[in-house]
Structure formats: C-alpha cells, structure tokens
C-alpha cells in the first residue's frame, strides 16, 4: 500500500535519511524503531509530505506521491499523528476534531463514534481550547483527530508518549481494531518496545538514517536486532 | 552643459504633500517650456531639474544641496510648507542661490536668498477679516479661529486675535481651536462651532485648517447643515485644488481669501488656464493661487536675469528687487525690497461648480508685510535688501540691523 524506496533527505548539509526503503501493507501494523535522532521522524514527515525528499520516492496505492503536497496526500487517505501532538491550540477540542472534515464528502462529515469510545475525555472537553489540555489529553486528541479523517494509512509518530498506561492499552486496542475492521495500514514509530512487540506485524529498525533491519515482530527478541536499540 | 540654464524644481511628488505640490511642479515645467518656446533666456535654453524631496523635511535640505551644488541650477522654485522652507534656508544662504517660495505663510522671515511670492498674513488674513466685519460680509461679531496645530495657523491666529481685539471684539467672542494634522473626525469641532454660533450674534469661522483635514471638515459642515448664510467659513488654505475633491453644492457661499482665483476674468488668466489645460492634457484640472505665485515669480526671475545679463545669483538677487510683471488678476506685481511682492487680495465665495466667485477685492495692491505690525517684537522691524541697508531685520526703533540689537 505504501512504498518508500531509497529515500534520502538532507537538512542543509546534514543528511538525515540515507536511502531508506520501507513497505507498509493494508491490514498490517508496521513498526519503525530506533534510537533518538536516527531519522524516524524525518522519515514519517517525508511520507506525509512535510519534507521533500532529496532523492528516492514515496508511493501510495501505486501512485507516486513525490510531487504532491501534504494536503493532497492527506486527501488521498494518509492521516498523521505527529510527534509533539501539534494540535491547534486555540481551536476547541470539537473544532480540532472537525478540522479533519476537510477531505471528506459532505455526507461523511461527522465524528465517528469510536473516537469518543476510545477517548472519553475528549467528549467531556469538547468545548475547551485544545491547547489547554494536558499533554496526554492532547495526544489523545491528536489521534482522535486523525481518525476523523477515515484514513487508509495511519502514520503515528510515538503516539504513546506521555500517555497514561491505561490509555496506552486502549490505543493499542484501537489500532488493532482499526487494522482489523477497516483494513487500514498503520505505520507506527515507537520507542516503547513492549507496546511495539504486542502490536506490530512487521518491524523495521533504523539506525543513523538507514533501515538496518526489517522483518516480522518476533525478530525483536533477537540479540543482533536489539543491539540497535541499546545505547 | 553650458548651453542651458538649469532651473531647480523642489516640490514633493510623493508623501503627504504630493497632493498639493505635484501641481506646482507641473506648472513650473509648463512655464519653462513656454519660456523656451519664446526663445529661452539669454539665448540659452532653460532646463528643468526635477527632484522629489518626498515630503520629508531633511530630504528637502539634501535635495536643495544636490540641486545647487551638483546640478548647478541658477535658481530653485519650490517648497510648500514652511518647515520645508526653513529646512532649505541654510542651504541657500550657504551656497548663495535663489529660492522662490510660492505659498502663503506666517511671515516673520526675510532672507536675502529667498523670494516670497505667496501671501504674507497681511495680504490674506487681515483683509479677509475686514470683509467679514463689513456689512457686505455680514457684520460678523463672533469669531471662531479654527486651525491645524502648527506654526502658520498659530501665528496667523495670534495676529488676528490682536487685530480683532484692537477692533473692539471681546475676548469671549473669540473661540480658538486647534486640531492635529490630517484630522478626520470633525463631529465634535463642528458641533462646537454650531454651539458657539447660536449665541445670538453673527458668527463666522476663520479657518487655517491645512491640507488633508479640509475635505472631512467641509463634509462634516455640509452634513451638520452649517450653511454659509448662517455661519460662513473663511479659509486661507482651501483653493480650487482642494475643492476638486469635494461636492461643493452644500458649501456654496463659504469663503476663501487668496490673491488669485481661477475664475478671475482677465485675458492673461484665460490664456494661462488654456495653456495649463493643454500642457496637462486635462480640461478639468484647476489652477490655483500658488501656481499664479510661481507664474509671477518665474517671470520676475526671467526679467531680472535679462536685466542683470547673467544668471549669477548674486547679481540676480539685486536685480529682482523692483522688477514688475503682470499678474493674472489684471495688474502688475512688483518685487519689493523685503523680497515680498505686491498682490491684490480677493475674497471669493465657493460656487456649486467648485470655483470661487470674487465678492470683494482690495482697491489696490497690498504690499507683503514680512514683520507683522500686530506682534510686539516684530512691529519695529523692517526689511530692505537693497544696498546700503541690505538687512532683513532692521530695527527702526534702535536703528540697528539684527533685531533688537544687543541692548
């Protein structure tokens, strides 16, 4: 469904991605792991269109995305939960959720029920400014907002960061539910190994701008794989 | 090049004053073109050097310096506001060149290098007030002196207040009010005028409101229904050009005092207007008093150069005094030794077509009085730039040049 091939990215003279190739299939949860600063976020942002790749390509459902802008990618079904949440601080929680209506047809412009099932706080806080929420609540809002878009590919950059354990579990359940029910592809960046191990169908491990390992989730228990994750 | 005589034109073409000054630049270009058509001057062609001081006073000084020392102009025609004139003054006296200043001003100045072709207060304000006090003018008893808060209105009003009091007007029958530059919300002021005018005595407004603030002022007057028959407004800086931006129908009868109106019916003026329309390629453009001042000033300069046989400023300065040229109101204006000129004073009423109709005119020409007789410290001063006196502020009481002297 999503195919990244040979992606490179530069920040000025510094190179953050050095020829990354990655696949994420529908109905699968694809996990990307790696230490701090190896380029996970850079890769995700390249996929959703925040950064333009220096070379290489990103294809979604067989169509090359390299020339399309972030909003076109979103309209073709890619939803993004960024690291750092990036909710709209002065919009109310409801408005934040409704901002996901843009790519939808008029008839679809409602907030799916499972959003509130997953994150009941959001329902209580609909009228509050997004920016006032606590860090974890914001993270929940960010995920909820992405779900409103009814995505085909959900890109999550460290979604569990700052979230209380019970809700992490809920998020895990939700992601699995989405994969199973709606048959969507999930691309997940995680540091939290246990979470990853539980959810992932495929894992990719990054180090210094490269994917150094990819394979099934079970690989995570191999020592040669884990070495990439230690200090 | 040596085969041309350069003439500097120092009027703002951008910024706040462009609205008034651009016309003067065009007028000068026309005059120069016509002079060239007549064969130029001293057998040479005149060449206009136009610069834009951009309504920025220090830039005026810079541009003046540029004109004189870089472009070597023989004389400069320019400035509108007094502050721009003040800022170029030192340049002209240092570099010993000539400035012709075409706008009415507050007086209290006489410089060797400057020729004042606009009105001094006695050539505008005093006759205007006289008219209002006369029977024809409505025998006004109560006065509102409405002005923009700066030197020209302040000085003029000071002179007027002294004059009115000398004529027996009581202090409570004079209301003085000032507004900032570019003022646009006149509701309160106009209401105050209305109130002041409803005391049972004939009231008039003498307006030294300047520039941009006039249009909203008159619009508000019209809307609040202040009619000229009830409370006439006499303005000193509202001319045809300003009225062009207004629907004058509700303003018919309000007054202005100038030394020239476009409506003046003389052959010189008819020709001038026709030339102007041809030059500017627009029949609707008006002429106005400062244009006439440039017309007069330019012709005086031409004549003086011919008389002196050179454009050397020193010689020309001496030659200009006494030169007499026709003005556009059917008479002759003469350059006096104080570097001010003689002018007729006209009072006009605004007409529905945006023109003025002269309702009163001084019987003869009035000589510009640079040092007002109504201000304590200046009444003893006179100016005479002819040798041997050659002094701009000769004190007749002490008999010394240089104001009071050191006593």
């Amino acid at each position, binding site marked *: 469904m999503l195919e990244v091939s040979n992606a490179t990215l530069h*920040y000025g003279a510094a190179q953050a991605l050095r020829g990354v190739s990655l696949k994420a299939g529908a109905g699968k949860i694809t996990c990307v792991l790696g230490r701090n600063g190896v380029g996970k*976020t850079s890769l995700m942002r390249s996929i959703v269109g925040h950064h333009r790749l220096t070379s290489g390509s990103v294809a979604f459902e067989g169509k090359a995305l390299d020339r399309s802008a972030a909003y076109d990618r979103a309209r073709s079904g890619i939803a993004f939960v960024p*690291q*750092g949440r990036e909710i709209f601080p002065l919009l109310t929680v409801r408005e934040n959720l409704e901002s996901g209506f843009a790519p939808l047809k008029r008839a679809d412009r409602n907030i799916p029920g499972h959003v509130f099932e997953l994150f009941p706080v959001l329902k209580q806080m609909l009228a509050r400014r997004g920016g006032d929420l606590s860090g*974890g609540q914001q993270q929940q809002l960010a995920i909820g907002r992405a779900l409103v878009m009814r995505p085909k590919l959900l890109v999550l950059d460290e979604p569990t960061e*700052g979230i209380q354990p019970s809700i992490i579990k*809920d998020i895990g359940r939700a992601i699995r539910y989405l994969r199973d029910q709606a048959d969507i592809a999930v691309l997940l960046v995680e540091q939290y190994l246990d979470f990853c191990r539980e959810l992932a169908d495929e894992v990719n491990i990054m180090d210094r701008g490269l994917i150094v390992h990819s394979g099934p989730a079970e690989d995570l228990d191999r020592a040669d794989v884990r070495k990439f994750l*230690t200090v | 090049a040596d085969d041309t005589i350069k003439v500097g034109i120092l009027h703002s073409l951008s910024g706040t004053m462009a609205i008034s000054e651009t016309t003067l630049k065009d007028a000068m270009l026309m005059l120069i073109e016509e002079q060239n058509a007549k064969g130029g001057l001293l057998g040479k062609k005149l060449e206009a050097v136009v610069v834009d001081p951009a309504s920025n006073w220090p830039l005026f000084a810079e541009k003046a310096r540029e004109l004189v020392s870089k472009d070597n102009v023989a004389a400069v025609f320019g400035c509108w506001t007094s502050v721009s004139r003040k800022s170029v003054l030192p340049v002209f006296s240092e570099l010993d060149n000539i400035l012709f200043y075409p706008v009415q001003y507050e007086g209290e100045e006489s410089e060797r290098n400057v020729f004042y072709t606009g009105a001094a207060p006695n050539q505008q304000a005093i006759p205007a007030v006289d008219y209002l006090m006369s029977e024809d003018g409505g025998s006004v008893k109560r006065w509102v002196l409405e002005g923009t808060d700066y030197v020209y209105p302040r000085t003029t009003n000071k002179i007027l207040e002294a004059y009115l009091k000398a004529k027996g007007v009581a202090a409570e029958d004079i209301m003085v009010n000032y507004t900032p530059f570019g003022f646009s919300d006149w509701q309160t002021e106009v209401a105050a005028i209305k109130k002041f005018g409803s005391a049972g005595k004939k009231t008039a407004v003498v307006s030294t409101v300047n520039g941009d603030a006039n249009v909203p002022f008159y619009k508000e007057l019209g809307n609040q229904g202040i009619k000229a028959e009830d409370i006439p407004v006499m303005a000193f800086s509202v001319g045809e050009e300003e009225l062009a931006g207004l629907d004058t129908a509700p303003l018919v009868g309000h007054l202005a005092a100038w030394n020239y109106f476009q409506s003046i019916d003389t052959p010189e003026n008819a020709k001038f207007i026709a030339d102007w329309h041809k030059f500017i390629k627009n029949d609707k453009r008006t002429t106005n008093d400062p244009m006439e001042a440039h017309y007069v000033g330019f012709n005086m300069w031409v004549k003086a150069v011919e008389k002196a046989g050179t454009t050397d400023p020193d010689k020309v300065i001496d030659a200009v005094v006494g030169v007499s040229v026709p003005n556009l109101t059917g008479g002759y204006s003469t350059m006096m030794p104080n570097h001010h000129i003689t002018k007729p004073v006209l009072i006009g009423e605004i007409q529905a077509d945006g023109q003025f109709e002269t309702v009163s005119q001084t019987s003869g020409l009035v000589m510009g009085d640079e040092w007002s007789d109504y201000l304590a410290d200046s009444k003893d001063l006179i100016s005479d730039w002819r040798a041997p006196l050659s002094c701009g502020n000769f004190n007749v009481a002490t008999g010394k040049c240089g104001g009071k002297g050191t006593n």
Partner: protein
Amino acid sequence: MPKSNTILYLDGVSVSFDGFRAINNLSLVLDKGEMRAIIGPNGAGKTTMMDIVTGKTRPDAGEVYFDGQVDLTKHDEAEIAMMGIGRKFQKPTVFESHTIEDNLMLALKGPRSIFPALFHRRSAAEARQIDDILGIIRLGDKRDELAANLSHGQKQWLEIGMLLAQDPKLLLVDEPVAGMTDAETEETARLLRDIARDHSVIVVEHDMHFVRELGVKVTCLHEGSVLSEGSLDFVSADERVVEVYLGR
C-alpha cells in the same frame, strides 16, 4: 508545623482555570534529599503542580513553601529559580538558536545579573563542568550544533543537561523519558538516582518500568489531589489507581 525539614511543602492548594479545577486542595510534602515519583492520569494536574511550584501559575488558595520557610507564592519564576528550584519541561524547551554548549553555559550556576554576564569570561572550572555534562547527556560530538537541529529525544537530553548545569536544590522533572528508548530510559533512571543522592527530586512519569527502577516513594494524583501514596507496589495495588490510571 513540621515544615522545618521539608524541601517542598504544599498544603490545601487549589487552582482553577475558567472554572475548571485543575488542582483541588492538594497537599504534598517532600523531605530534604528525597526523590519522589508522581504518577497520575493525563490531566490529573501534575504539570500544573509544577507550574505552581516554579511560580508560573499562582494558586487560588493554599500554602506553598520551599525549604521550610520560603513562601513561593510571593516570588516570581526567576527568583524561585535562583533559590534553587530547577525544572525540566514536559515539552522540551531549549534555546534553539544557540549551540548545545551555549545552552549549557547559560544554565550554569552562577550570578544572574546583567553586568557580570556582560563581563563574563569562561573559567576552566566552568569549561570542565560543561564537558562533564556533555559527557553525561552524550551530546559531546554535537556541542557546536544548534539546538534547533536536535531530534526530540536529543532535546530531552539537552534539557536534562541544563538542569544538571543549574545544579538546583530541588529538581522538578516532567516526563524525562518520553520518547526515549528503553536503554536510554534505564540510563536516565540511573542518572536520576545519582542526582538524588545530594538533591531533592520530583519526577513525573507514565513509564512504570522507569518508576520502578527509580525505586522511590510514589504519589498518584487524580483530579487535582492525591489519590494514593506509598511504594510503587502499594500504589499499583490500589484499586482506584488501577481503575483511573493503570487500567486492566
């Protein structure tokens, strides 16, 4: 009052925003030299509590004392920081247009007024201190890079480094390991335990492994007040904590 031996003393503190009670009659005492872990659901008021302690938010009611005698509600951020309370923010905030090294330099303990800063020259001791910290946070090879160019996790580390440089008496650490790998998490726990030997520390975290590794007393906040307090095992056995926080 037994304030005397406390480094931080909160009693009956409440704060509300537009009618929403974020902190509700909260009482919390931290002894000198103690390290405390604070957990609690999202929105429980953990960060807000830190805001109150550091002077960012003024409480509507209640007492907040530092070091047994200083009433913190009477001081502003800078004064409180000068007294020796340092803070790491939940969202890492560093000086993005300065290098890593300068970030640390500005945080280094020392006089905080204009003229000393104007005529400041770096001493050898300071240089050594910076080098040490750079070692600890493993950003030595990036010392001349602009902080803006760091990844999220690296910024977390830098902020911890700045806290170290500040060398405060009391450290408030908000979610230090968010976005760190498990290995780094362990590293951080070790570091904090080190620090806690001669400092007082409050750590907020959602990562239970990390909290466990710290091995200190835990307070669970909920809806602005203390829900449960004790050892981690005690707290995580508390039904209410499981209900609102840990989940099943």
